[in-house]
């Protein structure tokens, strides 16, 4: 049967042949034998649509019926037209020609998918075409209510029709099938590509949403952790509570605080594992595993601090992310490497002769390196004093802005070496720990790590006690 639609103001004509792209559709999208029941229940129609479309239409996922596609694939010979303006306003106008529609209730429903894909649904095919129009929540509506004898009623079924996952296209018969063949191939290709593209974009979107969900959950968990930690009296940088104005580094320092808090919690967990392993006298191999885990966790804080130093060196040096007592005895952004061995006490005894020599050498070398770095820092401070003091600047600033800026530039470059110092200090801490592990046996190393952790947590507890002490 002829289906022809006259478009009101369309430059081109499209004939819809059933040899079109929709030849892939093996089962009719829907076939309305009678138009009576349809119009009233557009919603159900879509429901049916979806159901029937459930299985075989995945290949018709995304059809982007762009103008060119349409126009390539459709020949105008049969005189069918579709509005080039895929607005339903225009379309409906175009469909308004009652005489064309005749009693067959044909119309073109355009369903725009998200992403701009368009699905053409053609009501009825061979027989009494019934036109179904349905909309998609992107808001383009098929409206053939203007058809004179059209029984389809809905114009805006945005809400009625849920997102249709499977689109179908039905093409009405056209007499002009042969001419459409070549164009059909191109259209098929294009449609397939479009389907792929739409599918990919849907998957991307899903992945993104998933990522957002995960981040949100993580955030919620972090906030809970923080609240818990605060209640336990652990000092947490106030900047985390959302007020970032106090820290110059802004989000960089806040991010570091969060990372550090998380690291600390993980560290505590690992140390507890270690403690239970030691207490339950597990075998050396298993103990070594736990020790290795703790050691590699130390490497992680090294990396964290190095990147934190890059983003905000003063925040790291300030130690605001540590408890007050820790902060007081801090050295270049962390604990003193020479203290590591001092806090061991007699935990690692008995030591062999060789081990004793090794430990003594380690003590000495870490002390020497620490002193060297400290002296380097003093030299830095001294040179900054020299640079910034009025001795270095021109006697009277009669427009010697250039001098001033020059000195400032020098001071800036000196300040930049701070990061290197903190980096070296951090490296020293890590290497001292690693060398200690090399010298000691597994069991001794485990006890040593526990002792170090005990010292630090006692220092933190001291901070809390001090903060909570009754004053006056």
């Amino acid at each position: 049967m002829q289906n022809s639609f006259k478009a009101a103001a369309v430059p081109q004509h499209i004939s819809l042949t059933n040899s079109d792209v929709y030849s892939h559709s093996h089962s009719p999208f829907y076939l309305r034998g009678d138009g009576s029941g349809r119009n009233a229940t557009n919603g159900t129609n879509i429901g049916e649509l979806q159901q029937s479309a459930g299985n075989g239409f995945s290949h018709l996922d995304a059809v982007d019926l762009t103008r060119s596609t349409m126009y390539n694939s459709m020949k105008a010979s049969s005189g069918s037209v579709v509005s080039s303006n895929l607005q339903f306003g225009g379309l409906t106008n175009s469909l308004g020609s009652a005489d064309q529609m005749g009693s067959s209730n044909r119309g073109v429903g355009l369903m725009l998918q998200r992403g701009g894909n368009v699905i053409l649904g053609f009501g009825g095919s061979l027989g009494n075409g019934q036109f179904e129009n349905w909309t998609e929540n992107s808001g383009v509506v098929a409206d053939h209510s203007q058809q004179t004898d059209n029984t389809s009623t809905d114009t805006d079924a945005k809400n009625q029709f849920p997102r249709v996952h499977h689109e179908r296209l039905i093409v009405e018969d056209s007499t002009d099938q042969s001419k459409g063949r070549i164009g059909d191939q191109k259209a098929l290709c294009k449609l397939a590509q479009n389907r792929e593209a739409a599918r990919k974009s849907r998957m991307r979107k899903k992945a993104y949403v998933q990522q957002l969900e995960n981040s949100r959950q993580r955030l919620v968990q972090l906030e809970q952790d923080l609240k818990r930690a605060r209640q336990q009296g652990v000092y947490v940088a106030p900047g985390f509570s959302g007020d970032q104005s106090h820290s110059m580094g802004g989000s960089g320092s806040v991010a570091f605080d969060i990372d550090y808090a998380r690291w600390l919690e993980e560290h505590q967990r690992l140390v507890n594992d270690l403690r239970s392993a030691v207490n339950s006298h597990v075998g050396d191999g298993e103990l070594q595993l736990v020790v290795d885990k703790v050691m590699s966790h130390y490497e992680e804080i090294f990396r964290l601090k190095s990147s934190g130093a890059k983003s905000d060196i003063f925040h790291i040096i300030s130690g605001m992310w540590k408890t007050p007592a820790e902060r007081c005895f801090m050295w270049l952004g962390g604990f003193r490497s020479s203290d590591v061995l001092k806090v061991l006490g007699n935990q690692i005894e008995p030591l062999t002769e060789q081990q004793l020599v090794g430990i003594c050498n380690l003590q000495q070398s870490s002390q020497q390196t620490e002193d060297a770095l400290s002296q380097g820092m003093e030299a830095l401070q001294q040179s900054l004093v020299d640079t910034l003091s009025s001795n270095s600047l021109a006697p009277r600033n009669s427009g010697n802005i250039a001098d001033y800026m020059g000195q400032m530039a020098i001071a800036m470059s000196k300040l930049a070496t701070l990061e290197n110092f903190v980096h070296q200090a951090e490296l020293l801490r890590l290497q001292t720990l690693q060398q200690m592990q090399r010298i000691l046996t597994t069991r001794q190393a485990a006890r040593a790590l526990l002792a170090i952790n005990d010292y630090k947590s006692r220092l933190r507890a001291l901070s809390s006690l001090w903060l909570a002490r009754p004053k006056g």
Partner: protein
Amino acid sequence: MHFGSGSWSSYNIPAKRSVATDPYERIERMASASAVVIFSMSTCCMCHAVKRLFCGMGVNPTVYEIDEDPLGKEMETALMRLLGGASAVPVVFIGGRLVGAMDSVMGSHINGTLIKKQERCELTWIRMRFPVKSVSRCT
């Protein structure tokens, strides 16, 4: 034990300066001239730290301040390429062999290999300088 010239004074190799002032050659020559050689800059604080480290170990290294060297600029680029890093100094050579920047020096020191490197090359150096039968004199 002490060897080499004074502690921090610049020690420029005298007019043995050949026409071919290829910076790499020059560096190699300077590095082999003493047991422990540090390339430094007078304004660099990390260099100061390295110097203090060796001093604290009781070693007197030979220090070249390349910012006071007329060919310093080329040497700086050459050193930077040698290290593959962002900064040219400080660079430490022991026994003519490259040890590296502060992190390598520190790493070697902590794991005990620095002292060994030093002792080894000191002995070699002394044997070279004083080719006498008894080495035991120079401990």
